């Protein structure tokens, strides 16, 4: 019963906020804050009641008719994975509103309307089980974000918003074609034309068709993730967006791509995914290493953090194509902790920008002296970025790499080189901003109460996931085993089928034992 309300509250809240914006900006902010907090509380209730659901695949479901003639229905469902994603969504949503409290001063009503509708789109993406509805929400995320970047962004915002929109829209259309293709194939096979996910799982498709359809889905998800070489929209979009925009982009939108891969691309097309896996892993490793290389050379702070996103999301692609439970746990963990750590870095960038009015690293330096609290936050989240144990990112990277190692030693080793690269660029961030000589003169104040609360909450989260990740891994474990099970059951290949340089389900230990004798 809750699920559709989660979305509706956001939609309604957006409209009310827009109207309220005509009278008073403060009212707008509070209305949008209350809206997201309400949804957050609802999701927390779902989390707390988790135990009640037992072994059911879906914790909550909601079905309604929409266009029955075409087999389109409104089908929302929640499992461990979507639950975690929703908690993340509303958490980040609250932070986004808090962060833009002082930053957005013009047109605040429309701003919050867009913000809330983006969140609604993201929520819908995480909840939809009907492919048509999924696409609908996928597109719903785009337009408000385009406005967000284009109206309240920085100098180059028009270019960035266009780039973002065209990239994601074009790839989304390819996905839509694939959805329609799948719909038709399934209808041809069984006579039942439907967009329902559960019924579409296990459709028999000819290999060539399966590749094509998967390619369509992959187009959208790889662009969203982003995978090199489709990543070019990201630096511009992240840099030019206002802080709340960057936060939502980095923390949530990128994760929708990862979610799509896990929920749709792999289970719906198991054989094609298996065949694609080496390519997927190569994309992952390339993303990690190329992203790190690009990060190092940047002089614009937000652009630098944006490229670290490219690098970190490479781990996700790598893990998704490893097809084992350990790697998937790492991937889900990475989705959450990357959101927190990169989000925090963007917030810090925004805070620095508010004080210094520059994003140019060469004009900063020696900031620790006047802002030790901000400096420690920057240091902490840079350490998270490089994967320091004790913080959540280490758990994520370790699980992902360990899982990938079980599947392919080569790719795991190459990806581990990314750890060294991450160190190089993370330390550069800290050094250029907080240490060293001052490159310009300025007088600034340290974190305000509001900012300290935001940062504090993120610190606690990242420490919690680093030191006690069990709640997260336990919540998502049933969902992951379902997904891997779906993949293996639907796939027609025998276990242990080799493809290229990658060794699969044939467990590594046995191979290694063979080496021993």
């Amino acid at each position, binding site marked *: 019963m809750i699920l559709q309300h989660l979305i509706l509250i956001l939609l309604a809240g957006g409209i009310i906020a827009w109207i309220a914006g005509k009278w008073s900006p403060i009212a707008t902010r509070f209305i949008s804050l209350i809206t997201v907090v309400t949804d957050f509380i609802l999701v927390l209730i779902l989390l707390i009641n988790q135990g009640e659901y037992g072994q059911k695949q879906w914790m909550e479901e909601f079905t309604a008719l929409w266009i029955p003639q075409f087999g389109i229905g409104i089908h929302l469902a929640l499992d461990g994975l979507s639950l975690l994603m929703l908690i993340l969504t509303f958490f980040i949503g609250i932070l986004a509103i808090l962060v833009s409290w002082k930053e957005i001063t013009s047109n605040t009503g429309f701003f919050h309307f867009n913000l809330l509708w983006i969140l609604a789109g993201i929520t819908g993406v995480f909840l939809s089980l009907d492919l048509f509805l999924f696409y609908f929400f996928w597109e719903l995320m785009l337009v408000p974000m385009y406005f967000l970047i284009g109206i309240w962004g920085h100098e180059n915002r028009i270019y960035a918003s266009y*780039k973002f929109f065209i*990239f994601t829209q074009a790839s989304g259309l390819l996905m839509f074609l694939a959805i329609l293709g799948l719909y038709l194939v399934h209808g041809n096979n069984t006579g039942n034309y439907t967009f329902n996910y559960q019924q579409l799982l296990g459709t028999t498709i000819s290999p060539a068709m399966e590749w094509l359809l998967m390619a369509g889905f992959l187009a959208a998800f790889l662009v969203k993730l982003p995978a*090199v*070489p489709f*990543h*070019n929209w990201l*630096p511009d979009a992240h840099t030019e967006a206002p802080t709340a925009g960057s936060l939502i982009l980095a923390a949530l939108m990128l994760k929708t791509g990862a979610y799509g891969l896990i929920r749709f691309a792999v289970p719906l097309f198991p054989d094609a995914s298996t065949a694609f896996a080496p390519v997927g892993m190569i994309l992952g490793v390339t993303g990690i290493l190329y992203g790190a*290389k*690009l990060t*190092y*050379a*940047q002089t614009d702070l937000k652009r630098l953090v944006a490229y670290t996103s490219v690098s970190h999301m490479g781990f996700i692609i790598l893990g998704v194509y490893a097809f*084992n*439970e*350990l790697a*998937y*746990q790492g991937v889900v963990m990475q989705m959450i902790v990357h959101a927190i750590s990169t989000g925090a870095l963007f917030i810090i960038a925004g805070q620095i920008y508010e004080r210094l009015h520059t994003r140019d690293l060469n004009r900063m330096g*020696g900031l620790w*002296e006047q802002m*030790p609290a901000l400096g*420690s936050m920057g*240091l902490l989240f840079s*350490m998270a970025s490089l994967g*320091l*144990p*004790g913080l959540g990112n*280490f*758990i994520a990277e*370790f*699980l992902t790499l*360990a*899982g990938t*190692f*079980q599947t392919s030693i080569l790719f*795991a*080793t190459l990806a*581990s*080189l990314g*750890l*060294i690269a991450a160190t*190089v660029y993370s*330390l*550069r961030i800290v*050094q250029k901003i907080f*240490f*060293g*000589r001052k490159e310009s003169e300025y007088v600034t104040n340290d974190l305000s109460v509001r900012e300290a609360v935001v940062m504090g909450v993120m610190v606690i989260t990242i420490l919690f996931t680093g*030191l*006690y*990740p*069990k709640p997260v*891994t*336990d919540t998502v*474990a049933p969902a992951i085993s379902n997904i891997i099970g779906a993949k293996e059951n639907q796939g027609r290949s025998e276990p242990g089928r080799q493809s290229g340089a990658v060794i699969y389900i044939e467990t*590594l*230990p046995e191979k*290694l*034992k063979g*080496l*021993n004798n």
Partner: protein
Amino acid sequence: MTTLIWLIPVLPLLSFLIIALFGRLLPKKAVAILGFGSVALSAVLTIVAGIGFLSSPPPEGVILSKIYTWIETAGFTAQIAFLFDPLSLVFCFVITFVGALIHLYSIEFMSDDDGFSRFFAYMNLFVGSMLILVLADNLLLLYLGWEGVGLCSYLLIGFWYKEPDNGYAARKAFIVTRIGDTAMILGLFLLFVSFGTLDISDLMQDASEKWVTGSPLAVISALLLLGGALGKSAQLPLQTWLPDAMAGPSPVSALIHAATMVTAGVYLITRTHVLFMLAPVVMTAIAIIGAVTLLVAGFSALAQTDLKRVLAYSTISQIGYMFLAMGIGAWSAGVFHFMIHAFFKALLFLSAGAVIHLLNHEHDIFRMGGLRKKLPVIYITFLIGGASLSALPLITAGFYSKDQILWFGWSSVISSHWLWLAGITGALLTSLYTFRMIFITFFGETKTEPAHKSGLIMTIPLIVLAVLSLVGGFIEMPENIGPMHLFSGLFDGFLPDVILNERGNHELILQILSGVVTFGGIWLAYRLFYKKSAFAIRYKESRINKFFYSGWGFDRLYALLFVRPTAWLSEIDKKDFIDLIYKNIAGVTVYFNLIVSRTQNGKLRWYVLVLTIGIVVILTFMISL
């Protein structure tokens, strides 16, 4: 009491939290008491636990203190649990005891610094992480401590952050050790995939059961772990960061870069010795690396002019001895040398720090001199430390620990005489560069006047460490001097004994030889540096000296091989060439737009013409079909 093992690492960590969050609000005295007190308390706990452990050994020889389950997913489990056995006892003792002394010293040393509370926060975090490292019962938790000390090392080297060079040194340290850490984590993956667990005791058991000696997997995983150890312990080829790390305050150099963090590699290899013994080729590699490093570093130390850099290279060299010991199977000897080295090296660094501090941050030994009369207490402690380092026979602890290694180097079954030769040459170098340092700094005419005398708080740790540097060795004496095997007895059953070959007892001869070498080094130093011989002055300007001064050119080599290519690589593609693809697509589209939009020229007649042509074309098609 023994179940309170977990308090040992937790106390400094708690103190870190409090100082980090509230340090600026608390008065300096409170921060000092908290910082010093937490480590001192941990030391007391260690000693108490140790006494309890030794007097009534627990059933399995270890105490396990489990806190909670850290990770449990997909068949992988890792706990936050602490293992207390003789090895961790020794390491904890050194870390907490020497650490407490250094913290006490720092109270006075850092008293004028603005970052007083920041310093103690970092130091406590370091001690906590190091204790986690040595107490961890599984390799993942060990890795947490491992990275934690790396972080604190970075923060403390670059402590005086306003100076960009310090930041550079800090980053260099972090990055070089990270390279080793990445090798280590690959080793962890390999071990996990092979055995499904990272719990140390389980791993060691499984490895000895399932892997034959010399199996490729054992060799690879041992090599990978060795990579990590090399990074943290600053051995060849990852040793370049340690000399530059001297940019940090002297207490930092004493604690991290002499006594504890750099010995983490020694701890790791000793802790997983079962694995290493399954890979004899790796053991040989360790011994050779240790031997070569101790020589390379010894020569480099001889050429340095910065007081702390001499000590830094000396540390690299002494850890080389520990690696040599481990490589020939003399496990407890390596740990023994670690403990004694911690005493005298920390002492040397603290005294050096006092000298530098009192001379207003003068680092160059050639601008010091004659401090024997001006700073007598510091001179005596420095002398004692130097004597121990040079292994002055019988009266210094260093003699017993180093001599044990030399003896095993000669007589161990898996060793070779070449290793012994390297060791004894290193001993000559050691006493040479040590007394060069002492003669130039403390004798002769005073070039810089000390600003004031050191206070009691700084002097007490020096005295305590000096005493330990003298008497610490008496718990483990070779057979012919007096049968004391308290230290190695600790490890009976834990660490395998060295297997000696039956070549008769040359021990006395070797001891005399090492004594001769030590005194020879002192005499040489006297001739060359106290008397300032012409040879020494000519040598100072020679090419070979400059080569040694630069640490055998490793920095230049790495700059050429790694640093410059990386910088070049990141510069060439700053704008990301893939962007060009999309920019060109957009460009092409715009181009076509420009072309096609010329048809919209607003001329009526043009439109009608086009209309007509279109109609004609359509009609043609319709008619033809």
